[in-house]
């Protein structure tokens, strides 16, 4: 245990605690051990709080997901006792199987929550892919503009923060108003579409609202990535005769990639848990039921079944995060830890 701690590199800028002159060699050892103990004292409270508010509920949800929901089965009208259910809840969602009065299972009737798992998964991924792609492209454009030097740049950066600061619930109501039947969107485009009333337009409205609200976040993350590229690199490339397009693909893209991947990871995980916009704008109607909406709708019909669904959702999001970090190089943890090679302050 303690041997590992001593192997860690010791920071040169030592805190005053360790300033006591000690014999060389021994000081490094003791410094690392004290640091470890200090660190534990400081970190443990936060970890305990997180364990209570996150780890405990998650474990609880997993345990619940293997229990039957007691109560009257809505499909059969029979009373179902609680107790260990095995993977029945998972089968219910993944295979979309509902109980029958005979005791067996059949495919859930259309319209019931049980029949919506795969469509909700599809909707969730559809929203995630479309919004993240749009936000990346638009965010990149905004970031490139914001990185330029011109008068009014700081006004632009402030303006970009406005949609970000508006609560999603307010954003949803605002866009519902804009997309209302008599609303400004129909007037401007000269259309008479019931935006939140049918599949395509409802999804379109939600996507627009989401893109409006979260592109600024994406743009600011990309901008931060752009700003660490030294101007000399571009100068050198210009001297060498690289075209604007070449400079973009050969310099900007590769250098901004780490920041871009982290931004995409953040947004993708955020988009996969989308709840507020569909819940408020359409109530999940017309092909806008995401997994989060489905979980919340299920809660009042049975905790344990909802727990199974939320566990599935959690696993899906975890897998996506894993793919990002493992295969696409979106290493948020690594980029937040100082690099070994002499970090400048």
């Amino acid at each position: 245990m303690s041997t590992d701690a001593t192997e860690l590199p010791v920071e040169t800028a030592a805190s005053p605690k360790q300033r006591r002159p000690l014999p060389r060699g021994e000081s490094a050892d003791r410094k690392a051990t004290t640091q470890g103990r200090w660190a534990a004292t400081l970190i443990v409270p936060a970890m305990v709080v997180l364990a209570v508010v996150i780890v405990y509920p998650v474990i609880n949800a997993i345990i619940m997901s293997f229990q039957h929901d007691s109560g009257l089965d809505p499909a059969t009208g029979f009373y179902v006792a609680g107790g260990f259910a095995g993977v029945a809840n998972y089968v219910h969602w993944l295979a979309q199987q509902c109980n029958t009065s005979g005791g067996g299972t059949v495919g859930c009737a259309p319209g019931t929550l049980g029949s919506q798992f795969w469509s909700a998964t599809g909707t969730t991924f559809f929203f995630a892919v479309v919004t993240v792609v749009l936000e990346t492209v638009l965010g990149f454009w905004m970031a490139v503009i914001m990185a330029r030097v011109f008068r009014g740049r700081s006004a632009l950066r402030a303006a970009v923060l406005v949609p970000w600061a508006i609560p999603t619930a307010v954003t949803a109501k605002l866009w519902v108003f804009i997309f209302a039947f008599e609303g400004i969107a129909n007037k401007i485009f000269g259309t008479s579409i019931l935006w939140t009333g049918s599949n395509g337009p409802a999804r379109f409205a939600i996507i627009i609202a989401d893109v409006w609200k979260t592109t600024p976040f994406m743009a600011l993350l990309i901008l931060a990535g752009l700003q660490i590229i030294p101007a000399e690199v571009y100068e050198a490339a210009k001297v060498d005769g690289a075209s604007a397009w070449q400079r973009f693909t050969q310099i900007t893209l590769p250098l901004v990639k780490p920041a871009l991947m982290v931004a995409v990871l953040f947004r993708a995980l955020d988009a996969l848990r989308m709840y507020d916009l569909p819940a408020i704008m359409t109530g999940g109607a017309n092909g806008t039921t995401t997994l989060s909406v489905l979980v919340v709708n299920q809660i009042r019909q049975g905790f344990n079944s909802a727990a199974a669904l939320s566990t599935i959702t959690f696993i899906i999001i975890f897998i996506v995060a894993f793919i990002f970090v493992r295969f696409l190089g979106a290493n948020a943890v690594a980029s937040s830890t100082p690099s070994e090679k002499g970090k400048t302050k």
Partner: protein
Amino acid sequence: MSSATMKPAVLTTAPKTAARNRARWASSRTYISAVLIFIWCLLPFYWMVVTAFRDVGYTFDTTPWITHFTWDNFVTAFSTSLGNHFGQALLNSLFIGLVVTVIGLLFGVFAAYALARLNFRFKFLVLGFILGASMFPGVAIVTPLFQLFTNIGWIGSYQALIIPNISFVLPLTVYTLTSFFREMPWELEESARIDGCTQGQAFRKVIMPLAAPAVFTTAILAFISSWNEFLIASQMSNDQTQTVTVAIASFAGSQPHQEPYTAIMAAGTIVVIPLVIMVLIFQRKIVAGLTAGAVK
């Protein structure tokens, strides 16, 4: 675009003018883009404010500036006669946001100090856990907590709204503060000690003033994220404890099946204006806090 095709001809005749033209063209393109972004970001917000001041009879008027000016919508927003509790909800959100922010900072500052300044085992693991926690889907904890709070009769209580919020605010504060603390010139603490400060003095006179902006920025971010929360609040609250986001989402009008848009926009304006003012004042700091840790 066109500058590429006209380059050779112009270059031979008047290279200087061509270069100047190109620079002017580039800068006007920048301005056009900037104006487009500006309009895209602010127009919906502007429309909300305009509607908030419009007489309810002219809800769908399309005049791009305020017409039929009235304060009535704000009165309606705060009126409780239709079963809305907007005023109470404002206080609830303020209270919940403050408590969550204080708790998040209290635990976050210490953890972030250790993560930024000390070397210890499992540091990578702890950072990974915190980061994972910050991206955690809210639905994964809403079910078990809903059952737990139902069983112990906490549904509709403030603690039922505060505790889940800590789950996403605390990782946020730890993560943001860690990035900030890592950038701080800690050598100054050392220098102060050499200059004869006691450790307490070095902390109070050197470190605290340096760390205060970082802590303050993090507090703003934490408060905003708690203020904006909807999923958990919509499930765990009742009429007395509902937050502003829930109040706005379920705002009822006098006519059934007819959304009281002008009143909702007025309520939205009240919720948003303080945030927008805060964002405009602390723009630089907020941007630094948002992007802290994402790059470097």
